[in-house]
């Protein structure tokens, strides 16, 4: 994080919603695995494999405690939140959805929580419906009773929006879904890194998130599921580790979670995620959340000073640590390019949420997203650069 850009500017990293930076302890944990006990897991009877298996499974335990899952067996390692959602779609979805059924999602979903359901909808013939959002960028809960019915088999919604910043009332949404007999899948990609999450308190049937947005490595993610659901689901991919017995006439599946983890898993990445969880717990998720609220509030206030700047989504009280915005007369790409020259990394585009941008009536937006290591002084540099962007384009 001490990196200086080629133009001599110190780096200010405000693209944490895309991927966070990694602490030393995470890099060391992964390096240590490769240097000292690199071996495959769940197979060998030799020392290295035993050590690797112990570290791999310890990471699963850490993740389970971190999100208050009842058991580490309910933590399935995937490649990321996207794969976790696809896993549910291709296993639970295929086994449970049929024509006449409805899957309800929302207008503020990331493409990862839209496209798998669209693909499955074509194959299975169920109906996909969307909870609209209000102009302020909140879910339109008045519409919920019309959309959430006995036909709804699954309700998928984002915990914290990657564009609006909106933190949804997920516990209430889950309760409403359960009242009509629907299951819920919660996309926690933007919540688990930033605030304390208790999957049992939320009564989530499925809960997904990614490692690389929470100080962990890429290529690693988590699916949490209720035990009885996971037990009843068919496997995802076939291969090693997911079987109990293979005969030429057929195979029997391994128990949960291994049933869903075919092939050699991302061992170093799992260990890295475990170290990231340790790191975040050492800091304390309440503190991470409080710090982000403070910096987001400050950034929100300072950004409103910039003329022609429109913030997408609700006020600072109802949002997580990110602010997407547009600047009149300056395309988001140009905003990002000018900010980059000032040393500030932000994202520009539709942030994998095209339907949401359509709903908001903008082609694209720029987004500043904060994490525990960002400071108010960095926000000042960012806001100064926004003023400069505006000068360049209006003078």
């Amino acid at each position, binding site marked *: 994080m001490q990196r200086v850009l080629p133009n001599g500017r110190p780096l200010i990293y405000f693209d944490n919603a895309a991927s966070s930076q990694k602490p030393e302890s995470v890099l060391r944990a992964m390096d240590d695995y490769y240097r000292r006990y690199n071996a495959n897991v769940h197979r060998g009877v030799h020392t290295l494999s035993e050590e690797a298996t112990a570290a791999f499974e310890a990471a699963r335990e850490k993740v389970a405690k971190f999100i208050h899952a009842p058991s580490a067996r309910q933590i399935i390692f995937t490649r990321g939140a996207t794969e976790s959602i696809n896993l549910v779609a291709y296993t639970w979805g295929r086994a449970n959805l049929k024509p006449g059924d409805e899957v309800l999602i929302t207008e503020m979903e990331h493409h990862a929580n839209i496209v798998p359901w669209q693909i499955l909808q074509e194959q299975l013939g169920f109906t996909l419906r969307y909870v609209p959002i209000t102009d302020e960028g909140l879910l339109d809960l008045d519409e919920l009773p019309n959309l959430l019915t006995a036909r709804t088999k699954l309700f998928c919604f984002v915990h914290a929006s990657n564009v609006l910043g909106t933190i949804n009332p997920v516990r209430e949404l889950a309760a409403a879904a359960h009242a009509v007999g629907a299951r819920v899948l919660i996309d926690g990609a933007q919540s688990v890194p930033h605030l304390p999450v208790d999957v049992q308190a939320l009564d989530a049937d499925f809960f997904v998130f990614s490692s690389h947005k929470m100080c962990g490595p890429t290529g690693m993610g988590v699916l949490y599921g209720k035990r009885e659901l996971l037990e009843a689901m068919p496997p995802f991919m076939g291969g090693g580790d997911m079987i109990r017995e293979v005969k030429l006439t057929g195979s029997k599946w391994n128990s949960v979670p291994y049933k869903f983890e075919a092939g050699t898993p991302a061992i170093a990445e799992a260990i890295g995620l475990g170290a990231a969880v340790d790191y975040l717990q050492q800091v304390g998720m309440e503190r991470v959340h409080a710090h982000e609220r403070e910096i987001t509030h400050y950034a929100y206030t300072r950004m409103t000073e910039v003329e022609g700047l429109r913030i997408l989504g609700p006020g600072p009280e109802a949002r997580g640590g990110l602010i997407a915005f547009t600047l009149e007369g*300056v395309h988001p*790409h140009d905003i990002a*390019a000018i900010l980059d020259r000032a040393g500030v990394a932000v994202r520009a585009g539709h942030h994998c949420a095209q339907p949401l941008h359509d709903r908001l009536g903008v082609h694209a937006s720029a987004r500043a997203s904060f994490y525990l290591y960002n400071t108010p002084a960095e926000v000042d540099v960012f806001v100064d650069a926004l003023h400069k962007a505006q000068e360049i384009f209006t003078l």
Partner: protein
Amino acid sequence: MSDDLYREAILDYYKHPRRKGHLDAPDIHYHDHNPFCGDEITVELKVKDGVVVDAAFDGHGCAISQATASMLMEEVIGKSLDEIKAIDKEYILDMLGIEIGPVRLKCALLPLKVLKAGAYGLEEWPE
């Protein structure tokens, strides 16, 4: 206030685009977009004896893509379709007169992609 990427000419073409809009009954009409950033460009040409006699673009996007499209429309008047087919990346960079990184290069080259697809008479860009 200036910036090396956003030199005056580019900002001027972005803020006051020339040849933006639509032609009556164009001979060539082609539209494409960059799915990663959402930039969109439509190019329309009127062609007489294989030579462009009128040109217009429409679309939305960043300063680089829109200014490039506008400049390019001025450039192509009087050029034959064969000459248009021969326009390359270097031509665009010379026209813009700036250094461009690999990411923004896509913005600068989108108008050329649309223009050339039109010149070749494509219905759809071959994958």
